[in-house]
Each structure stands twice: as structure tokens, then as C-alpha cells.
């Protein structure tokens, strides 16, 4: 199974200018170019879609899910255009949106039944069993009769995951699955994703690095609508070898140091500040120790604008 995204472009315009675009005329000043010639291919496994706010992750996800049409480009699954496949494609996907908006007046069970019907899960013992199985998987069996409005944030996230996996989809797309949840919940969700991802294409859009560290097959980095990298974690961290250092900076020189360096983290010890930095060039003015780069370093390296160049 292959999900291909080929040369996707998407720009947001003001409403009145949208009519001009349909007639083929170029726009002089669109509001925002959300995606710029994004192309990649996904096989089974977990993929992390990373980028800061406004990078285009949600737009890309909405296109992959079929909720939004790109201006140009193609999204295909097993060689077929997903927009032409229509309902057939949507039978194979599970989507978890970014925000926790659901029908607050419904109970957990009612909501899952409602979504199950829309996912064409048939009436019969199989259907009911599947719902119970999914509730057990996300550990919401005790809350089946509770109204969604009364659930905590973590429970709502789990419910969103539950509705996404209800139809045992081939393609699972999760938009910020751990947003607003506590560390325990985050680990639980991360482990759940690993468990259910066997033989599926799982795309996790996030800007929280620990969520996808170690579990993702490949990381896709988006920046201002363009894809800057798509590679495994090992390769991405290898790219940063020789660029991550620990500097011992005297406290009185810290202010100047901060202005000219990409600091990942700092720890103060008496009169010295141990700063973890990312730099293309080795800093010679202070005590320096080269470190093994992590995924967080990769993220910061790609999304921080100021890097000192000698």
C-alpha cells in the first residue's frame, strides 16, 4: 500500500478573489501560500509530520484526508486519485482532528455508534464488538455512559483516537494527538499508536518531538509550506553530527552569547552556564564538548532562523 503526495500546492485567498482564480488568472496578493510543491510517498509505518505553527501540517492533512482540495497536484492511494475514489478511499482512512470538538450532548457510546454508522460499520454482533474492543483499547470502558462534555481533556483525546480507529483503517492520520494532555497520558497515547500501527500507514502531525521520537519510521519536516526533509531519524540526526556542542560560558558573557548562538538548553552551575548549542562552526572562545545530536536538535536546527556563521 502506497500513499503518494505529488506536487501539492495550496494557497488561501480572500473570497472575492477566489472567483478570479477559477477563471485561470494569477493572483497578485494571496493571503497565504499554505503548501508549496510538496511531494512524498508513504508505505506502511509511522511517519511524523513536523513543523512549527503555520507550517502547513493541518492543510496537508486535510488534503490527505479528502476534506480539502489542493490547487494543483495529486494525492493517490495505490495509484488511484483519492478524490476520484471518494467514499472508497474514506473507508480506508481514520482521522483524528487537532481540536477536541465533538457533540458534547452525546455520551461516549452514542458518539461511537454515530461515527460507526457513518463509517459503514454494519449492524450485527461484529459492529458492537468492534466498538467495545476500541473502547477497551483506549481505556474508556468505564466512561461509556458519560457525556462527552463531562470528559477530561485526555479522555476526549482518547475518544478521538477511538473514533479514528473504529473502522480499522489502512491509513491513520492523527493531528496533534497529544495536545493538551499530561505526561502519563502522552506516553499512553504514544504506546497505543505503536500498538495499532502494524501494517498501516500512520501519519502523526505534531510539533512535540518526544511524541514521535523512536517510534517513527521517517520524519517529514515542513517549513513555510515546503517540505525540507523526509528521512529517518538516524539520518536526520547524522546530518547534524559535528554541529551540536556543549559550551561552558561565563555568566557575564552569557547575554552576548545568547544573541549570537542557537541555544537549545542552559543549566547554570555557579559562575558557569552550560549551554547546549547548535552551530555550523565549532565555537573556539569557550570550553566546548561535542554532543550526540537528538531529534529535538534537528527540529531546532531547521526551524531557528539565527545561526552564527563565521
Amino acid at each position, binding site marked *: 500500500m502506497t500513499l503518494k503526495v505529488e506536487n501539492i500546492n495550496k494557497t488561501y485567498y480572500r473570497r472575492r478573489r477566489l472567483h478570479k482564480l477559477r477563471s485561470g488568472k494569477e493572483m497578485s496578493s494571496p493571503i497565504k501560500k499554505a503548501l508549496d510543491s510538496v511531494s512524498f510517498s508513504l508505505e506502511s509505518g509511522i511517519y511524523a509530520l513536523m513543523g512549527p505553527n503555520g507550517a502547513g501540517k493541518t492543510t496537508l492533512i486535510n488534503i490527505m484526508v*479528502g476534506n480539502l482540495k489542493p490547487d494543483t497536484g495529486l494525492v493517490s492511494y495505490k495509484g488511484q486519485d483519492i*478524490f476520484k475514489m471518494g*467514499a472508497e478511499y*474514506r473507508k480506508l482512512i*481514520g482521522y483524528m482532528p487537532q481540536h477536541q470538538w465533538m457533540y458534547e450532548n452525546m455520551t461516549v457510546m452514542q458518539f461511537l455508534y454515530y461515527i460507526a*454508522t*457513518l*463509517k459503514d460499520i454494519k449492524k450485527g454482533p461484529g459492529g458492537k464488538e468492534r466498538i467495545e474492543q476500541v473502547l477497551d483499547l483506549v481505556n474508556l470502558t468505564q466512561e461509556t455512559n458519560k457525556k462527552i462534555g463531562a470528559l477530561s481533556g485526555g479522555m476526549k483525546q482518547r475518544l478521538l483516537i477511538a*473514533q479514528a480507529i473504529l473502522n480499522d483503517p489502512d491509513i491513520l492520520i492523527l493531528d496533534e494527538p497529544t495536545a493538551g494532555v499530561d505526561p502519563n497520558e502522552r506516553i499512553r497515547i504514544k504506546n497505543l499508536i505503536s500498538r495499532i500501527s502494524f501494517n498501516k500507514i500512520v501519519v502523526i502531525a505534531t510539533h512535540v518531538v518526544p511524541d514521535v521520537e523512536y517510534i517513527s519510521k521517517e520524519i517529514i519536516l515542513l517549513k513555510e509550506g515546503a517540505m525540507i526533509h523526509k528521512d529517518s531519524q538516524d539520518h536526520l540526526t547524522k546530518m547534524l553530527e559535528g554541529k551540536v556542542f556543549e559550551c561552558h560560558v561565563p555568566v557575564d558573557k552569557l547575554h552576548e552569547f545568547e544573541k549570537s548562538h542557537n541555544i537549545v538548553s542552559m543549566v547554570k552551575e555557579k559562575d558557569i552556564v552550560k549551554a547546549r548549542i547548535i552551530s555550523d562552526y565549532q565555537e573556539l572562545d569557550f570550553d566546548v564538548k561535542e554532543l550526540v545530536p537528538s531529534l529535538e536538535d534537528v527540529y531546532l536546527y531547521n526551524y531557528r532562523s539565527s545561526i552564527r556563521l563565521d
Partner: protein
Amino acid sequence: MNTTIFALFSVSLLAPIFSFDRQYKMERILGATSRGNKYLLKTRFRILLPLQALMYIAMQVIWYSSLSYRYGIKNISGNIQSLPIFKDFPIVIDMRVMLILQLLTGILLVWLFCTFIFSISIKNSDVIQSLLIGTIACVCPFILAFVNFDLAKMFWLGPFLAPSLLFYKFTWPVILNMVVMTSFIVLFAHKAVKDYTSAQV
């Protein structure tokens, strides 16, 4: 007055249906399911149209009951030409048949009106805006009648809210109005449904 009340209740029932999903972003989850587009649309239509027909019939029954209390409706088997307003009606039918015809026409027109409100709901992502636009659509004929704005009355939703107008004012402006408004509603609904199902909403 009854038809205006009916129209306002139709708006309050129908306008939030899709706007609510859009306002609370549920359409993202629904749109990602296999039956969240066309099937959902068809199902909602299939529920609401008979419901609207039932409500319309209930309204007519209550109205006729009140008339029979106040005046006593008599001689319903008399020919429709007995009423001065229908003296030039081309077909000789009795009042019962006319009442049934009016009821059936009323139901069809109510369905068209509901389609219009439905389309407004699909196009709007705010429940209050949908309710407002629907209310304005209901209130417009009322206001136009007051101000005697003849040109605007050529194209208004009046007949959809008072179908009996079609029977005793069967003149070319009324026919033209019906044709224009029906075409407008059909085109508007078609556009709204197309946008909804083709992920451009």
C-alpha cells in the same frame, strides 16, 4: 400569519443542521468517513422533508379546525367557482379537491423553501448567521407587502409561504416569480451540495 410562523420554525429547525457541524468543526471528522458526505446529506433530507410536510399538514389541520369553530365550514362539496375570488378558475372542481390541491402544492413549495434554508445552512459556518439569513428570507415578503414595492414583489418568496396565492392569482407575474424563484433555489441548492460533497466548503 400561520405561514410566517411555520416559516420561522422551519428556519429554527433547519438552519442549524449543517452550520452547527461547521461551526464546531465536526465536519472534519464527518468528512473523513465514507458516509459523511452524500449519504449524510441524503439522510438528513430524507428525515426533514417528511417532517416538514407533517408539520405543514398539522398547521393546516389546526387552522381549519379554528375556522370551523369560528365560522363553521359548510358546503365544502360546492364548486370552487362559488367563491368570488375563484369565479374565473378554468376548471370546475369542488372545494374539497381545491383544499387537497392547495395542501399538496403547499407541501411541494414548503419542500422547496426548506431546500433553500438547507442550502443556507450548508453555506454558512455560523449558526446564528444561518438563523438570521433564514429569518430575513421569511420576513422579506411581509415587509415587501407592507411597503408595496411592486418591482421587488415580482421576485419574492411570498408564494412559497402562502401557496393559495398561486390558485387565485394565477397571472403571469406570479408564474414568472415562481419560475425565477424555483430556478434560483434549485441552482443555489445544487451549488451548495456540490461544494459540500466536493470538499470546497
